[in-house]
């Protein structure tokens, strides 16, 4: 079907979810009160603000991920031609991985991979 299939799929997904939610609101006979809108916290009121700052570890892992993800995108075109290029491709990727691995070891030494 070609590229138009993506439009079909997006429309199908939105239609499916939309119809499902519409259907449930049609048969619904809901009531509204103050307690109903409270966040679920096992029966006790929430203490303080919800939108707080979390452990810095998540941020560090996101940063390292960014480096490796960009590297992975570089690898895709390489992988397609690797077999036909022969040993030159092998040497190049060894150099590429070596530089990358040094960066990884540096991050490891600095303690970025340790969960605090």
């Amino acid at each position: 079907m070609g590229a138009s299939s993506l439009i079909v799929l997006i429309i199908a997904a939105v239609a499916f979810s939309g119809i499902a939610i519409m259907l449930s609101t049609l048969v619904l006979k809901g009531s509204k009160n103050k307690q109903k809108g409270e966040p679920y916290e096992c029966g006790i009121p929430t203490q303080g603000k919800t939108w707080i700052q979390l452990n810095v570890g998540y941020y560090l892992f996101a940063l390292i991920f960014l480096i490796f993800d960009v590297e992975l995108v570089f690898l895709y075109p390489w992988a397609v031609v690797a077999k036909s290029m022969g040993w030159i491709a092998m040497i190049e990727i060894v150099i590429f991985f070596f530089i990358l691995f040094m960066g990884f070891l540096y991050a490891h030494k600095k303690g970025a991979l340790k969960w605090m």
Partner: protein
Amino acid sequence: MWSFSHIANELHEWLSSIFNPTWTLVIEMVLAGVAVIGLFAALGLVLVLMERRVAAWIQIRLGPNRVGPQGLLQSLADTLKLIVKEGLTPSGADKLLFNVAPFIAMIVAMLLMAPIAFAKDFQLWDMNIGVLYVSAVSSIMVISILMAGWSSNNKYSLMGAMRSGAQIVSYELSAGLSILTIVVLTGSLQVSDIIHAQATGWWIFKGHLPVWIAFVTFIIAVTAETNRAPFDLAEAESELTAGFHTEYSGMKFALFFLAEYINVFIVCAIGATLFLGGWMPFHIGNWTQFNHVMDYIPSSIWFFGKTFFLIFLIMWFRWTFPRLRIDQLLNLEWKYLLPISMINLLLATAMAILGWHF
């Protein structure tokens, strides 16, 4: 004769003989949309029931067996129950993000259907960057989870979403590297090329050690990427009630639930395509007689058989292993799986250049 591609071609010819090309295309698009929605609903119902039956079987109990024969209609009854439940939006929530998040989860799950070959020559779009497309689109999934967690105004949800984000982005790396192993061996990103390269034997048999390592890494990584146990920290019931969808109820919750199961199906379909040959029947080298006998089994049965075998494997994990802690989870990826899969890629490259695979 009765293959899917044959039916699709017949339908196309029949429609073209009645309507002009524009209307033919429109009608085909509508039919494709309806077919995909039908597949979605059917897969959701089947996989939920399968999960419960497999769980029951592993724990030596019966599982759902009252609604319909052998409990076949159980998930239909559950869907009916979810429709009449109220889809509540908490008063402190970010209403727009809260309501958009399930839609994004569904759109991502639906978009991933495009490059999957369900049977011989039966594919929505055989794009030349198929494998790259899959890994690109599947990483959008994390956005819907973060949106749901952040907008819920609930600490459990936020915690679950953050964990899920760290987990999905980490395990994407080793999943990508193990996919690249197959790309190096095949020399193409196109799904049909990868399947045709396995006509003399599936990669898992042809590829020796590097492909075995890649297969194991891939299964571990996709189990984590789809937030399945033992990596289900995003919705760890015992600590976070339900993780990122704690505040979701009714149909919105059902959509998240459905998207999760569809994602399991899709990653298993990708795994079956890359390592087990997709719709390609079980062929051994040039044993023409044997290969000919195997060709009698329809290609769609081969595809769904392999996919459901992998799904069963992932369900088996869920009821076998205890849940990991977040630091153990990240250690496993960054200190073991990532270096292993990087070295494995080099090994596979050397093997592909030397031509040591069959």
